[in-house]
């Protein structure tokens, strides 16, 4: 069951454009982008134990690079230059912010990550960069050309969908490799006992900074394609609500195994869609739902089975 389910889900995702309409193809493409974003945060929160409430800054900065790298709103940026530029910008920002915020821990870390992401928000909200508080429209999608031949047309929702599916799989595989590496084990060690890791001779600050920078870079990757899909950028993409939402996705799915982040992204956005179709005041339902899930399923949806079993049959030694 544990092996079959992800495969079935993958098959369903691959078959979706053949059976579903354009609306759902675009919705699921958006979910897959958010899943990449959520996985990058899981590397920090679930794997390393760093609760960041400012992760949207790196996502949003890369979105803005799409707009700023284009000559104007009607001319597309080149994918091969603008994508590395966006990722590099996010990684650099993550490195700079990380170097400061990692001097703190625990609850300070939460507040400080929130505060710095708010600073980035104000840079784009208060100044003329990227169109101020209104943001900028991108009427043209970046071009992915090899010579004269167009590799992928991002304007076509099916082609974009499969590109995002590929991106999701590649990011997942890459992060799995990271987790299985010596570096990943060191991060897990830092989460469970940082003192001991330091005593073992690990420079935990450097490890955490590397994780923070990597997570920022991957968030940038997601932010880049979010801007490509939405066709606009605005300061809300790096607001703290965005940071809180992605944190919700991660905990909703379950921490630390990357699958949870993907499941959480699907659950969160589909629920958002469902609730907002029911009532204008859907945030009330969302708030209630968040509270219920965190109270009742602290391990997230992917560990709901375990929670159900312990509830029915409390462990004997507990």
């Amino acid at each position: 069951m544990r092996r079959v389910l992800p495969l079935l889900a993958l098959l369903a995702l691959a078959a979706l454009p053949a059976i579903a309409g354009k609306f759902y193809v675009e919705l699921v493409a958006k979910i897959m982008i958010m899943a990449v974003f959520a996985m990058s945060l899981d590397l920090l929160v679930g794997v390393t134990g760093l609760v960041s409430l400012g992760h949207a800054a790196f996502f949003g900065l890369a979105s803005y690079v799409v707009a700023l790298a284009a000559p104007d709103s009607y001319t597309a940026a080149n994918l091969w230059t603008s994508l590395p530029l966006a990722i590099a910008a996010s990684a650099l920002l993550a490195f700079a912010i990380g170097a400061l915020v990692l001097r703190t821990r625990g609850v300070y870390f939460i507040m400080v990550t929130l505060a710095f992401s708010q600073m980035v928000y104000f840079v784009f909200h208060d100044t003329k960069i990227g169109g101020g508080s209104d943001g900028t429209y991108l009427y043209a999608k970046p071009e992915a050309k090899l010579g004269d031949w167009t590799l992928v047309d991002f304007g076509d929702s099916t082609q974009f969908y499969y590109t995002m599916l590929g991106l999701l799989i590649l990011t997942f595989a890459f992060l799995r490799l990271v987790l299985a590496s010596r570096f990943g084990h060191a991060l897990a060690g830092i989460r469970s006992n940082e003192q001991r890791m330091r005593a073992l001779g690990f420079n935990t600050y450097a490890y955490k900074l590397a994780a923070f920078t990597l997570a920022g870079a991957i968030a940038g990757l997601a932010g880049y394609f979010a801007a490509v899909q939405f066709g606009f950028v605005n300061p809300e993409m790096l607001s703290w609500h965005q940071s809180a939402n992605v944190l919700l996705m991660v905990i909703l799915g379950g921490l630390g195994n990357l699958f949870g982040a993907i499941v959480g992204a699907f659950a969160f956005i589909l629920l958002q869609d469902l609730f907002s179709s029911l009532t204008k005041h859907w945030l009330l339902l969302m708030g209630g739902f968040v509270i219920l899930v965190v109270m009742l399923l602290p391990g997230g949806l992917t560990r709901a089975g375990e929670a159900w079993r312990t509830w029915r049959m409390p462990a004997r030694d507990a």
Partner: protein
Amino acid sequence: MDVSILLIQILNSVQYGLLLFLVASGLTLIFGIMGVINLAHGSFYMLGAYAAFTLSALTGNLFIAIALGVVLAVAFGYLLEWVFFSFLYRRDHLQQVLLTYGLILIFEELRSIVVGDDVHGVAAPAALAGSIPLGTTMTYPVYNLLISAACLVVAALLFGLLRYTRLGMMIRAGASNREMVRSLGIDIEFLFRVVFALGVALAAFAGMISAPASSVYPGMGNQVLIICFVVVVIGGIGSVPGALVAALLIGFVDTFGKVFLADYAGILIYLLMAVILVWRPEGLFRESAV
């Protein structure tokens, strides 16, 4: 810069700083004593401002509205600690963040359902609606002076409570060593409820008293919340004097930043925080409640 303009900016800085202090002092005490990170604290400020709008329309008098509002805020805080926050103490910080974020969504939507999403103004009482002249051409609203004075009185009362009363002694002890207070047989559950109610009342009072000077709008709580986090980080978690110094510092930096830098002023306080983090990552006044 003209002396009267300078004076006005100083008065604005002090007013902003003192308002921030009222919100941040509750936030820092709640964290210091109960170990709870409360994202919904800014919502209490927002709810206070909307309470001032609604109650002053009902009663026709801002001061009666504020008195009523404070009583309601204390009751609300006491109840909220009982039915919600008391379940958060054993949860980790991540879960506290998400649970209180859920609470923000609920408060904002309830506000939207009850009062709507419009921006409102609250009239200052007629007796205080005037301005006093400063220098030859400038004036300063009387009501804004009253805000600073009222905040000063409340801040003094808070320090008096913390320093000279038995309750204050328990709160200070709780902020410096929670486990020790528990083991000394102090009714910690009651203490938590009182501190929480106090924090809610301070934030709501700040929202109510400042409502006539600024407008009342959706999302105002979140803006204050994030700046109060900066205050708490700079001042040191759990430290009320630290919160006062940090709040005034931010009041001045933000107000004068807007005068000299215009568009880039929004990021100044965060740069200030960055400097403090490099210099003293634990904040200016770590571990001294008063």
